[in-house]
Structures are given as structure tokens and as C-alpha cells.
């Protein structure tokens, strides 16, 4: 267990500033996810914390102790990588044992430690196999076991599920939180998969140009994204983005969509008269009967059923495309004409020029599904 503090970290590679004044505190026992596209500096930040790279400026503090400049092996940090990085000439047992061997643990302590973590990760039956005799999933579990075995106070996981198949990734995503909580480690977890980020993170740091764009709980990031680019990174299908210029009259703030007036909450005041982008999450949109008040007429272009949801591509009278998603098994619209109900409270409004989210409002909680 440990608290990890990063103070004003700067890292440059030649003229390229990868991290510019990054500060962050990871709480004791917390899982913090670093999320962002490749090249956003996630792995560099991990390496700085691990001590395999040095920062150009800033301090790294673990449990109150300044670790800046301290050698990697004395930082109490365990690490697992996306490419597993197992030693090919050593069997799974020896691979997992390396951190314990490095600190010269007694032989029976090594044996007990390796066997217990191997049981937890369900690889106790392949401990005598070398990496080439292991499946991808077993390799990934072996790498994870090696990171966990010494019970390091800080655990750094660099996209550990990236190279395993979808089924296994799902299985591990469900298992990991308990596994990590049991070890009591403070975890920094890097991923490019938003589902993994939301599922595993107590908080998510969304990385952008040279730093952290937004830091918050999965709910804050999903429901109140700081900007349009962040909103686009979370959600499947992706959020609908429509150019609008809200206006105000005696009845309130509104936009026109498909020739229909859509009312907006009073909190959208800052957007009035401004070129904006309205973000509509596909799951907040509902098909309703013709004649429903405020319903937006659309044409159905295509229905694409997925497993737990059905996604419909519709077109407004003005030719704009909108994706609508609903739980699988719930009745959908007939072909041709349909009508959409837009949840005004769920609309995210962004400034078109800057991409920043405008109205302070935004939904506090996900919209409840009408129960069928």
C-alpha cells in the first residue's frame, strides 16, 4: 500500500516535450487508469515512475519518500508490459520468481510466493512450461504473476490485456479488480480501450497533448467530458455530434433539428447565439410514437444488431446522420419513418471553435431506461 505523488513532471525527447508539467496523486490502494491515444505519453510516464527513465524536471514521491533519481529496484514498484517480456530460456516458475530472487528471498518463500500467485491466476498447472509452450493468455497471466508476486506497494500495468483475444480480455477485465484489491497495491493501469478504462479505474486520467486533459471518476468522464475529443473517446457507438446554434425566445433555449424545435435546459445559456456542437449519446435517444411532443422525425437508414444492443442509423430531414442504440430485445421502429425523443438533460454542448464543453450542466447520472 502506498500513495504515489507526481510533482511537475517534465519529459522531453530532443525538441519534443512529451510530458509538460504533469502533477498527479494516486491514493493508497487506488486503481488509476492512464487513458489516451498512442503517443500521448502514457508509457513514458510509467517508465519515469518505475525509474527506467529519468524526468527532465519534477519529483516522484512514494509514501512520502522522494524517489526521484532512486534506482528502479529500490522504488518498490512492480511492472507488467503488453508484450509480456518473459525470459524465453526460463520456465514460467522461474520467470515469476525473478523479483523474489532479485531480493534474495529464501527458497521456500520463493516457492510459496510463486505458487500462491500462480493459483490465483490459474496457471499453477503450467509452471514448468517455457514461454513458447504457453498460450498467449497463459503468457499474459505469467507476466502479471511476476508483477504481483513480490506484493510491490506500487504496481504499473502497461496495457497488459492488449495482446490477448477478446474473450480472455473480457475474462481478465472481470477478474483484475478483485485480484488487485486482494494484493492491496496502488495501481497505475495504461490502456487505449475505453471499456477497460471505465471498468477498472477508480479514476481515469485522460492524456492529451503533453499532459492530463481530464482527471475524474468514470462517471465524471463519461457524463461530463471536458471537451469534444474526450467525449468521442468514450462510448460505443460513438457520441453523435451535430453542429448547432442555440437560440432563445419567450419559451426558452432551443435548437432546430429535422425542422423540429428541441428545448434545452436553462443551464445551456452560455451556448445561446454561439456556433456549437451538440453531443447526443446514442443510448439517451429513444424511438417514440408519431405525435409525441417534441419528437424529431427521422428516416431509418440501417439497423445493425449487436449482441446486447441494437444500433440504428437514422437521417434527419436536413440530411444529418444520428446513431440510436437500445437494449437488445426491445422493440424498434418500423422501416421508413420514425420519431426520436431527445433527452434534453443528456445533451452535451461544446464550443465549436475550442471543443471545450460549454454548459456547466450535463447529466449527473445516466438516464434510466424505461423498463419494458
Amino acid at each position, binding site marked *: 500500500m502506498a500513495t504515489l505523488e507526481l510533482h511537475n513532471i517534465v519529459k522531453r525527447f530532443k525538441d519534443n516535450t512529451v510530458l509538460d508539467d504533469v502533477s498527479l496523486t494516486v491514493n493508497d490502494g487506488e486503481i488509476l487508469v492512464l487513458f489516451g491515444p498512442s503517443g500521448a505519453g502514457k508509457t513514458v510516464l510509467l517508465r519515469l515512475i518505475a525509474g527506467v527513465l529519468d524526468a527532465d524536471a519534477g519529483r516522484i514521491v512514494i509514501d512520502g519518500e522522494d524517489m526521484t533519481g532512486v534506482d528502479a529496484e529500490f522504488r518498490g514498484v512492480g511492472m507488467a508490459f503488453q508484450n509480456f517480456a518473459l525470459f524465453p530460456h526460463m520456465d514460467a516458475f522461474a520467470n515469476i520468481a525473478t523479483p523474489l530472487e532479485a531480493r534474495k528471498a529464501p527458497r521456500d518463500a520463493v516457492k510459496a510466493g510463486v505458487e500462491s500467485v500462480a493459483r490465483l491466476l490459474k496457471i499453477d498447472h503450467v509452471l514448468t512450461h517455457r514461454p513458447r509452450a504457453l498460450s498467449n493468455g497463459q503468457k499474459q497471466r505469467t507476466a502479471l504473476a511476476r508483477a504481483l508476486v513480490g506484493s510491490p506497494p506500487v504496481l504499473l500495468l502497461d496495457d497488459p490485456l492488449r495482446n490477448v483475444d477478446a474473450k480472455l480480455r473480457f475474462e481478465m477485465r472481470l477478474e483484475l*479488480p478483485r485480484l488487485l484489491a486482494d494484493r492491496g497495491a496502488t495501481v497505475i493501469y495504461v490502456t487505449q480501450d475505453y471499456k477497460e478504462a471505465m471498468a477498472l479505474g477508480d479514476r481515469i486520467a485522460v492524456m492529451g497533448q503533453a499532459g492530463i486533459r481530464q482527471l475524474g471518476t468514470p462517471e465524471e468522464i463519461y457524463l461530463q467530458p471536458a471537451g469534444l475529443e474526450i467525449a468521442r473517446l468514450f462510448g460505443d457507438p*460513438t457520441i453523435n455530434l451535430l453542429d448547432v446554434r442555440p437560440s432563445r425566445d419567450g419559451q426558452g433555449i432551443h435548437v432546430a433539428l429535422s425542422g423540429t424545435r428541441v428545448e434545452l435546459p436553462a443551464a445551456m445559456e452560455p451556448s445561446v447565439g454561439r456556433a456549437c456542437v451538440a453531443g447526443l449519446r446514442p443510448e439517451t435517444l429513444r424511438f417514440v410514437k408519431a405525435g409525441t411532443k417534441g419528437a424529431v422525425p427521422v428516416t431509418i*437508414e440501417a439497423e*445493425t*444488431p449487436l*449482441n446486447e444492443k441494437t444500433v440504428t*442509423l437514422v437521417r434527419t430531414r436536413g440530411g444529418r446522420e444520428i446513431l440510436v*442504440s437500445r437494449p437488445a430485445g426491445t422493440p424498434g421502429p418500423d422501416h421508413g419513418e420514425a420519431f426520436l425523443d431527445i433527452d434534453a438533460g443528456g445533451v452535451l454542448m461544446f464550443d465549436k471553435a475550442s471543443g471545450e464543453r460549454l454548459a456547466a450542466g450535463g447529466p449527473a447520472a445516466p438516464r434510466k431506461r424505461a423498463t419494458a
Partner: protein
Amino acid sequence: MKAAQLALSGVDKFYGPVDRGVHAVKSLTMQLGEGEIVALLGSSGCGKTSTLRMIAGFEAVSRGTISVAGKPVHDLPPVRRNVAMAFEGYSLYPPLTVRENIAFALKAAKLSQAAVDAKVNEIAKLLEIEDILQRYPSSISGGQQQRASLGRALVRSASLHLLDEPMGQLEPQLRAVLRGRIKHFIKERGLTAILVTHDQTEANALADRIAVMEGGVLQQFDTPTVIKEKPANLFTGTFVGEPPMNVFAADATLEGGRVRLDLPQGVSLTYPESEFAPQVRDQLRALRQVVIGVRPYAVRRTTDGVAASVATNQWLGDQTHIAADFAGGTIVLVEHDRARVGIGDTIGIGIEPRHLHIFDAATGEAVAHGMELA
């Protein structure tokens, strides 16, 4: 009845000598109607790509016949099969711009310049590659090359369109909307298309019917709905579906007017016998050893259900995935709202008979599915 647009009959593929080499595709028989979209779905090495390559003419069939629009084509070279293709490795012509690449087959078909331009512009708009039409393939990204190659195939008029992992490299933000547009485009023009994919989301989204393959054998060929509701065997049941179907070994006993399913760790599910059709009851009596399956979104939390301890609760924005310790393993539930249960909480697991899938434990073949019970 009208002839099938594509018919494969008893098709085998061996790499190496027939009957002794690697048997990649085993006695494959299937037919596609005109205007149908079919997905060949399976993991790598299942035979889907070999099948596609035989249809295209890039691979010879070892045995069997392939007909397109009623005419045998398996002895014809690719160019004489009237098939349009978007393949990985069947790449864009490097000395031509993206526009010229897409227009190439249209010009060969002797369309007027204006008609060619209109078609290219339309597909470029649909695939969002208008801004790269003047570029050369080497100067655009992998995802853009894929879209250009897809565009080149889709604009052609052909008896059959073959699409190999057509959206594998697209950025996720584009995928959902492109799937919708491509499906609309194909349907509007009545094209007959086969796509090969390992991504079930893509197969479900685009295809009228899905051919699930494994080990060179066609496991099931049906609509996405039937595959979801009535998987033919344990393989299909657990392969198609995300999150995967929950499965548990069970001993079936029928006594006192009730059907009892005993799962590991003393977990027992009992139902009135009347919920099961007589022939299903007979099969359960005969088999005893079965595997039961239930889809994550069909598992319910109920106060009178089997007690299970919550292992994780993961909210993904539009749905919640809950995993709980159950019958010596894990059971996964999907809910469409934000579920407020914490790790370690006890929840009641309810599985209604109408959501049960029952498989023969020995063969993996399906015995019954919820909707046909009673």
C-alpha cells in the same frame, strides 16, 4: 425456385495432397440468395479465409463445386468470375491515385466519365475519403487504404462482392456509422455480399445470415437472431455473444413433477416439469449429464434466487457488467442501467427456463433452448 447467387457444394480444401494434406475446409455446402449479405465468422485457422479465397479463385478447390449466378466457376480464373473484391493483400495499385483506383473497374466497364465521377464521389463521401482522392496509396494511412479498397469493390457492379475483414483497421469512432452506411448502400443496390471477419460485432451488424466456422467445419448458418437464441452447439453458443454465454456443467434429474439441475458446489436449479416439453424431459432423463447456458443479459437479480457474492461491478456508460461467484465459477450479468451493487454484496441469481440453453455434455450438441421448452 430461382438459382442461388452463390452455391458451394461439398467443397473441400486441402493444403498439400488431397486426403493427406492439411484439411482446411471440410465438405462445405452453403447457398446465398440474391441480395443477401452473409458473414463467414470464426477465429483464425477456422477455414473462413480459405473459403473466401476459393470463391474468389485465388485458391483451387480440392473437391466440390462453386457456382455463381447458376454457372460453375470453380475452374475459371478470378477475372472471369465477375466477382468484386476488397482483400487484405489485394491492394490498391500504387501508381494510381485513390480516385483512379476506385474508378479503374468502372472505366473498364465503359461508363462515361461523368457517370464514373458521380459514382466515385458518392462512395468517397460515404466512406469519408473525399479529401484523399488525389493522394497515392503509399501516402495514406492503413485505415484510409482499407476504405479506398472497400470503395473500389463496392462501386463495381458484379455478381458477388467479397469483403475480407473490411473494417478491421478503422478507428472505432468511425465504425458504427460506417457499418450503418455500408449496409444501407449494399441493401439499396441489392448487392450480394460475403464478408469474412473474426469480429462478431461486425458480422452481427452487417449480415443477414452468419456462417459460423470452426476447424474447417460449418457449425451453423443462420440469422443473427437464430444464432443468438438457438445456437446449434456449445461452440457457437459460447463463441457468438459478448460477453460470452455463461455455461455450467449440470446433472439433470426429474422427480416429483420437477426438473432439477445440479450444478457444482451444491447449487441447484429446480423448475416445474411443465415448463419443459415432453421430448426435452425425455432427453434430460436419457442424458443426465448436460451443460446449461444462459446469456449474461438474461440473468436476473431476484430476491428469491441463488445467493451469489459480487466479484465486480463495471459500468461502461450504457450498460453494467456484474460478475458474481456462482456454482464454483463466475456468472456474468449485463444490465442496461447503472447497477448499484458493491464488491462482496450478496445478490440473488435468477435463471428463468425460457432463457436456458441445454447442451449434451458429451457431444456439445444443443438439446433445447428456452423458447422451445413447454
